């Protein structure tokens, strides 16, 4: 049985000479191979690469280099392009696609010494809230195998408490890192839009997509962001904003700072048990000298509606590249011309949720409907942004539940898309505003399902999330409660 190591503990262990990265990596690989079939967390295990990277890290550490993420085993959501390793976005459309390059963020992680155990499960092209739309099938929730792990990044979120790696990379467009983190008792980090370069990470909705990670602790989240944050010439949406030393915010005093509780994040749409656990969390922080204030974000309830116009519109445009030529070719059967090739490739290659989103987007962007849907949603987006700007004049951070409810049953919401979409009702508004947010474990319901505390901060103030998150975590340490497998 492997220890419930954090990144920090492994780095300490390495520098004390307690074990080597090769030893540790072999243990993770062994555990992964034994238990993954039961949970379906990884869709592809890159054993050769992992052992090669671990050996390289061991060499560096023998020479005294314990910097960055040296020798730390990780998972990558299967939308991060990895040279020579199949990258599918968990879609039949991309089965067999082997990128000839590493995404810049992947290269940064490799250069920092991280060890890639493989690729983790996700909803198809990251479109979903439960990992049920993956062409490889659902991932099981580590705390109750009859429940979903959340999504889209259910694989990366489930990998952490199961100790299938120490951390895992993800993408968050409307909640795809934070919501599964809350369903799986992990820390889920969503950065400011543009804080981490997206180039080489398969796009979903380009005005919303962000790159983040799932970790055990808030400190680990800061350690990873210290490596991934920055600008890159291959992503022109990364502003020249100063990159801070995020680990400096761990354990920094929070007394006198102000927390805002948006009343709309605590209304009747939120399960009673979830609301109570989050209020308990607020009390913990109050005891550390923060000032708590009720605030209002009155248009919160329109977030999901605006998102389900804007995001499918961008999805429909981004998915146009899957034309069966550069990607997703079918076996050469019964296809006579190019149009038929498009229709068949896309009809067979995309699953139901992709088809729904592509069609909603195509409709919302079509002549005659553009103003009523897409333009209207973009204006509502402005209203939501202004609301956040207004409350942040008054408070340092905002807090609420990550999701209105804990993990739901596999299959429970599959036939009703709208009931599925509202799982992200409390993460979507901050995604539309492009602000950062973090999910921190906040305890368990009576049925034993994890609940996450959501902390949000103004753009490029990720440091505040680590400051508040670590203050809360140091009093609670729910991350230590891992499933007994």
């Amino acid at each position: 049985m492997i220890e419930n190591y954090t990144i920090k503990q492994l780095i300490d262990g390495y520098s004390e000479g307690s074990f080597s990265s090769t030893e540790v990596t072999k243990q993770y690989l062994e555990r992964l191979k034994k238990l993954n079939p039961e949970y379906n967390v990884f869709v592809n295990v890159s054993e050769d690469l992992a052992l090669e990277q671990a050996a390289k890290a061991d060499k560096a550490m023998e020479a005294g280099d314990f910097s960055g993420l040296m020798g730390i085993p990780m998972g990558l959501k299967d939308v991060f392009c990895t040279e020579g390793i199949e990258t599918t976005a968990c879609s039949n459309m991309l089965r067999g696609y082997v990128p000839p390059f590493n995404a810049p963020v992947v290269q940064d992680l490799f250069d920092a010494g991280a060890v890639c155990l493989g690729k983790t499960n996700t909803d198809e092209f990251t479109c979903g809230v439960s990992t049920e739309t993956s062409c490889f099938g659902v991932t099981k929730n580590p705390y109750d195998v009859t429940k979903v792990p959340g999504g889209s990044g259910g694989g990366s979120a489930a990998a952490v408490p199961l100790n299938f790696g120490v951390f895992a990379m993800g993408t968050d467009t409307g909640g795809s890192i934070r919501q599964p983190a809350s369903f799986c008792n992990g820390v889920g980090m969503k950065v400011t839009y543009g804080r981490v370069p997206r180039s080489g990470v398969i796009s979903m909705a380009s005005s919303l997509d962000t790159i983040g990670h799932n970790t055990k602790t808030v400190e680990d989240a800061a350690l990873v962001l210290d490596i991934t944050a920055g600008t890159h010439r291959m992503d022109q949406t990364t502003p020249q904003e100063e990159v801070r030393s995020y680990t400096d915010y761990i354990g920094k005093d929070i007394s006198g700072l102000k927390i805002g509780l948006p009343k709309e994040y605590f209304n009747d749409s939120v399960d009673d048990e979830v609301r109570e656990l989050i209020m308990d969390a607020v009390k913990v922080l109050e005891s550390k000298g923060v000032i708590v204030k009720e605030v209002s974000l009155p248009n919160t309830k329109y977030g999901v509606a605006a998102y389900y116009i804007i995001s499918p519109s961008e999805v429909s445009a981004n998915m146009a590249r899957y034309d069966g030529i550069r990607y997703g070719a079918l076996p050469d059967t019964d296809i006579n011309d190019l149009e038929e090739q498009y229709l068949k490739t896309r009809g067979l290659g995309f699953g139901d949720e992709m088809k729904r989103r592509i069609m909603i987007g195509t409709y919302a962007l079509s002549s005659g409907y553009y103003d009523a849907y897409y333009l209207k949603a973009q204006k509502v987006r402005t209203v939501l942004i202004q609301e956040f700007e207004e409350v942040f004049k008054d408070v340092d951070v905002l807090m609420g539940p990550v999701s209105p409810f804990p993990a739901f049953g596999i299959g429970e919401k599959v036939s009703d898309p709208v009931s599925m979409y509202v799982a992200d009702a409390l993460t979507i508004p901050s995604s539309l505003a492009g602000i950062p947010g973090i999910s921190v474990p906040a305890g368990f319901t009576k049925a034993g399902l994890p609940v996450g505390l959501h902390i949000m901060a103004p753009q490029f103030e990720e440091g505040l999330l680590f400051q508040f998150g670590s203050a809360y975590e140091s009093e609670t340490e729910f991350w230590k409660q891992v499933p007994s497998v």
Partner: protein
Amino acid sequence: MNLTKEQVEKIAYLARLGLNDAEIEKFSDQLTGILDYVDMLNEVDTENVDPTSQVTGLESVMEEDEVIDYVEDKSRLLEASNLPKEARQILVKSIFND
């Protein structure tokens, strides 16, 4: 807003999605449900509100006009496609019908 089967067929064709009859039936109900839900956006007063297309205020980011060899061996880009290749090009089906 009720999406008819004909409308769904048209949207699917515009998006070049080949759907069967059962899918068209299913999606016309589900898409109608989604459009009914997003109708609530009309409750929000957006008079004199500008639309947002990006959130961090960046405009016209300029880039030096120089070639970077992201993938040095260009044959590897061709290898990513499953289609047959000829003379360093991907062989596709005919574009024009008879």
